């Protein structure tokens, strides 16, 4: 037996045993260099279609790692779907869109650094995305400082388009005050006058609670008490057991795993039988329904987007979007989740940018003010670009208003019970651009 394994007879064929001449070396080297060069020179798919047209660079900020990674990856699908569709149909003003994706690790400091990288290093023309509100708020000054339009895709915090609004930032989807305006008459007139609000005790939950307190009262109802539950509480029973007294309905402001924990806790304590259960649509996103099962039956919520093909979402536009989103989502999650509002809002955010660029003749960052003026007050109609429905991007605060769906859960599925037109969701602007 040989001392070294590669001296064994069976291993002989595995090793180069010929003579390496200078000629052979040069031939092999040039072949390798040629192959490498050919790979580099092969145009990207969009280059083949657009020739030498300079692409619009769109910076996309999403949390692709860290605590919000799952949501960030889903949101990115919406952006990619829209860009693929735009590039396939000839681009914008004859120019393709090139995405520059940055992962901000679910951290505000990284988000800010990545935002600076996008505007300073990558020199993007516009930006899109965002997911966590605290990161959005941390990044807004960067886009303002570098005079770059940022079309936010997900961030929900009310202050983004109120007290901390920016001329360079747009939110092309709804916010809590508009949802509260939309659902409060339904809650008070069709479900009950007296309400108890349970909410996640941090910035988003608190601002959403305040919006519902105001609107339920305005609609003629009464909020008898509120209960705050810290974010990330896994056992909510100690908090939920204190929810007692005389009221008609329990309104929950939760999302994700917190929504599942809360619903499970109130179901186990029998509160869903004793009181009517309603809440923010984030409690009953399609991704949460399998985990909630029977416990969420009869829940009434509000959402801007539902993954159903019932009227009025039985349009060919929505069918097309729905099918494409299901296919795209299956690539990142083999369980095949249905699209959610994050896919929808990022898809439509890109299309808002497309329309703004077309309308303003935007060439690059030097035309940012023209783009802002084109987007301000923009009215869009339901169609392939906006499968969710008509929208108004209000000039005063860059906040969009759109139709809302009041739904219930029946048989583990969303069922639309009422559609609130966008005109009935308006909430006065509270923004002063500096």
């Amino acid at each position, binding site marked *: 037996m040989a001392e070294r394994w590669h001296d064994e007879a069976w291993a002989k064929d595995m090793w180069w045993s010929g003579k390496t001449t200078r000629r052979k070396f040069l031939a092999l080297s040039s072949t390798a260099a040629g192959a490498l060069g050919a790979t580099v020179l092969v145009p990207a798919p969009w280059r083949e279609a657009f020739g030498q047209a300079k692409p619009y660079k769109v910076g996309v900020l999403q949390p*692709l790692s860290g605590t919000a990674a799952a949501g960030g990856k889903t949101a990115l699908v919406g952006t990619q779907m829209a860009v693929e569709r735009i590039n396939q149909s000839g681009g914008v003003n004859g120019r393709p869109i090139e995405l520059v994706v940055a992962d901000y690790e679910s951290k505000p400091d990284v988000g800010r*650094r990545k935002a600076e990288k996008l505007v300073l290093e990558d020199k993007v023309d516009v930006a899109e995305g965002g997911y966590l509100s*605290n990161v959005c708020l941390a990044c*807004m000054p960067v886009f303002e400082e570098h005079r770059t339009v940022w079309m936010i895709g997900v961030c929900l915090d009310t202050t983004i388009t109120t007290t901390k609004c920016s001329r360079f930032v747009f939110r092309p989807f709804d916010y809590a005050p508009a949802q509260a305006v939309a659902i409060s008459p339904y809650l008070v007139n069709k479900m009950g006058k007296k309400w108890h609000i349970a909410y996640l005790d*941090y910035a*988003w939950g608190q601002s959403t609670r305040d919006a519902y307190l105001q609107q339920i009262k305005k609609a003629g109802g009464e909020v008898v008490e509120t209960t705050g539950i810290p974010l990330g509480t896994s056992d909510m029973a100690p908090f939920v057991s204190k929810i007692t007294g005389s009221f008609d309905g329990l309104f929950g402001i939760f999302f994700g795993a917190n929504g599942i924990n809360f619903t499970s806790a109130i179901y186990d304590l029998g509160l869903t039988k004793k009181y009517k259960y309603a809440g923010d649509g984030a409690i009953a996103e399609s991704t949460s329904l399998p985990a909630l099962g029977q416990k969420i039956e009869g829940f009434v919520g509000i959402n801007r987007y539902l993954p159903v093909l019932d009227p009025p979402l039985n349009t060919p536009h929505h069918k097309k979007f729905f099918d494409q989103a299901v296919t795209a989502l299956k690539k990142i999650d083999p369980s095949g989740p249905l699209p959610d509002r994050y896919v929808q809002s990022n898809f439509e955010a890109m299309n808002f940018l497309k329309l703004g660029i077309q309308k303003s003749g935007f060439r690059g960052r030097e035309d940012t003010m023209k783009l802002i003026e084109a987007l301000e007050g923009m009215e869009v109609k339901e169609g392939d670009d906006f499968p969710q429905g008509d929208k108004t991007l209000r000039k005063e605060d860059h906040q969009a208003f759109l139709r809302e769906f009041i739904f219930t859960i029946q048989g583990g599925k969303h069922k639309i019970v009422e559609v609130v037109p966008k005109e009935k969701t308006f909430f006065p602007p509270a923004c002063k651009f500096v």
Partner: protein
Amino acid sequence: MTAMPAARPTPPATAYWIGFAVVVVLLIVAPLVLPPFWQRFATEILVWGLLAMSSDILIGYTGMVSFGHSAFFGLGMYGAATALLTVKPPSLGLALLYGLVAAGAAAVFVAYFATRLRDIYFAISTLVFSQIFYVIIFTWTEVTGGENGLTFSQPRLTIPGIWSDRFTPVTFHWFVLAVVVLSYLLVRRITQSPFGMVLQSIRENEPRTRAIGYHVERYKIVAVMLSGLFAGLSGVLYALQNKFAAPDFVFFVVSGEVVIFNVMGGMGTLVGPFAGAAFFLLLREGLSRFLTEYYLIPLGIIFIIMIIFLPQGLLGFLRRRLNT
């Protein structure tokens, strides 16, 4: 033939100061030659390096591993934010003062209780304190802005009665560099003083230090306070650079990163943590550009390799020379 006299070796102190001057000059020139993004990145490295150095007072010199530095750093940020949001016009001096007072007060509180414990118990108690501060800041939305934090504008660089101007990225870098250099020289002086020797004695053999008559608890309390103050100072600088304060910086994960900076750079060297912060941040930035969300895998592998093959860190081999 007459033998040539041997060249006189450069005294270690002279070599040290020459090296120090070269590094400082390079850091002064850096913002003038770097592109805007890397300019800002260099400033950020200095800030994180200062935080890591503050932690080195405890980890490297006193032998106490703290997971509470995120609290001091975060409170420095919130202290500065309070000054900048409540006092008109925003004052740089007050931002520094408020930040240092907030971090210092928290350090006194943590030090009083945590220094009664040793080793892993000390580490856990500092972690618990940082989480208490985190929960308070995260939920007290009316005052701290909750999850969203506080945003504010940058104050002007002012010399009262003489001069006042807005910060540019270059002047801000120089301002941070000046603060960091002064802090480093001060901490170096402290660690080489008799007080610093006692800290190192505690690290080497706490019962013997106590036996020869030193009040170990008092020394530990002062060490935590000093460390907390410099951590708070780095928090103020970070807030001034980014114009926001957020609860994420109070979360214990930041303390974990600071420990990593120390391990990578070399504990007990003061300059090692700066090298560790620079190495880690540059590596993270570089890897994340090519591997997007998968960058953590190679980063973790590199960290493990460093622990196995370079246990003293990048500058650990200089430890003795840097401390003489």
